[in-house]
């Protein structure tokens, strides 16, 4: 997904957009297509996340859009207060990009796992969370956020091989997208984990929906698009506390309509173990 992300930004800048990238000494063999063409619009802050985020807010406050690109925890927890005070409070067009969503960097260990990031990012009032589940969702989400610049958190999977949707999609914040039409009564709803789910289950037995853009300010939109269901299974590569499933539960609390929800998430036990993403997801990931 990283390469497609950069390709998209290059394309958008070529079309006259004013996009900047700030990195914290990460992005080797990823950001080069951008830096080759736009060397004056990419800055390496070095290994200093607080300065990286504050500086990005400073650049964005001059009315340009900034993408802060890093791995999992570095662009979130390490500079959480800069995100809260400088980016979100000022409502600046900074998109915080974290690569290696969930257990993407499985064998690098707990320091590199992004399994609490939703909890942090969804607490900020102006922040949109963008968690694309395939290449089309990524490209479409990027088009949306470049057209509607605002504080946002883009969570990217490390893997590159992602299948395409059968038809072109248009993504709106808080609105769900139907990806697989199976059993109409068994609804699976996810953000970002489309492929993982499709690989594991028989897609005829379930209808799979995705919610690529969501956040504190889109709860009503989501409620309106999911309250028609009677049963929902939420799936995420994140802890239950403060995660996507919890967020869906909160959305449904705003309505009197009774919807049975079953949340599937990553076990806290994952903290003590390392391994490939495949191994960790099998052992500690959402269970059937």
């Amino acid at each position, binding site marked *: 997904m990283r390469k497609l992300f950069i390709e998209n930004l290059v394309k958008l800048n070529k079309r006259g957009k004013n996009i900047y990238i700030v990195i914290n000494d990460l992005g080797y063999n990823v950001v080069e297509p951008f830096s080759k063409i736009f060397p004056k619009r990419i*800055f390496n802050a*070095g290994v200093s996340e*607080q300065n990286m985020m*504050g*500086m*990005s807010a400073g650049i964005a*406050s001059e009315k340009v859009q900034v993408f802060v690109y890093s791995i999992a925890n570095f662009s979130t927890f390490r500079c959480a207060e*800069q995100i809260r005070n400088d980016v979100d409070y000022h409502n600046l067009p900074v998109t915080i990009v974290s690569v290696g969503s969930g257990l993407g960097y499985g064998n690098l260990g707990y320091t590199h796992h992004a399994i609490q990031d939703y909890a942090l990012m969804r607490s900020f009032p102006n922040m949109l969370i963008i968690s694309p589940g395939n290449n089309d969702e990524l490209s479409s989400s990027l088009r949306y956020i470049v057209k509607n610049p605002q504080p946002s958190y883009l969570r990217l999977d490390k893997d590159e091989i992602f299948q395409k949707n059968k038809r072109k999609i248009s993504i709106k914040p808080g609105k769900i997208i139907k990806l697989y039409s199976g059993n109409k009564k068994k609804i699976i709803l996810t953000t970002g984990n489309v492929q993982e789910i499709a690989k594991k289950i028989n897609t005829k037995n379930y209808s799979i929906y995705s919610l690529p853009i969501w956040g504190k300010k889109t709860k009503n939109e989501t409620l309106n698009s999911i309250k028609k269901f009677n049963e929902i299974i939420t799936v995420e590569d994140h802890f239950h506390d403060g995660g996507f499933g919890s967020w869906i539960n909160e959305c449904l609390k705003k309505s009197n309509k009774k919807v049975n929800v079953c949340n599937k998430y990553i076990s806290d036990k994952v903290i003590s173990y390392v391994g490939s993403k495949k191994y960790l997801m099998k052992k500690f990931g959402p269970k059937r």
Partner: protein
Amino acid sequence: MNKKDQKFIKRIRTNILKLTFSAKSSHIGSSLSIVEILYTLYFNILKKNDRFILSKGHAALALYCILYEKGFITYNVLNTYGQDGTRLMAHVSHKVKGVEFSTGSLGHGLPVAVGKALYFKTNNKKNKVYVVISDGELNEGSTWESLLFASHHKLHNLNIILDNNKIQSMGPVKNIIKLEPLKNKFESFGAKVFRCNGHNIKDLKKKLLIKNIKKPKIIIADTIKGKGVSFMENNNLWHYKNPNIKQLNQALKEINKNYA
């Protein structure tokens, strides 16, 4: 100090004292230490497209009083400082007209200023960026992170003024985290450093106007916390306390005398 400057300085200090009293707020010493710095910037230095960030956001009242003098906010608005339902909170807020950026947690202002200076320099814009930081703020790692970056990128349009009042929350800076030799530290981080009396407008102006420097400029402005009121000067109590009516009247009397 000439008569015109004196008149403004007296009124700003008077307003700081009165409003801290009526709002029952704190940080009076921190506000009194930067009056001349802000006055010099706003009345002598800042041009239309320049940017100013008060990184020591707890001295918001001093900035609001300056913004009143410059016509950004009315006296009625200024008078709402610290009251229920106002936007004039005790840490500087961008929701107030004329304020560039909200701060309050230390170590945020310089990185933001660096981002602005970087943008201007890369795009060949002439705008200058000014930021006032506190000495306590030099405990923050983010301040030094951004200084390294600013020096590496030779941000000649970045002007940092250190309000060196030598007292932080819990006591004298030298007893908490030693900072001196500050000039050597800043120079070794790649900045061009000047030192001046932070209550002397002429001195501040002279240092701020020095041109043709090819790296970030830092002015160590030596100041007195609580400047202008004898019992508030260099007394850490006034980082927290607001004056009672007797203390307010005594303070106003001293300001009247000292800036007559």
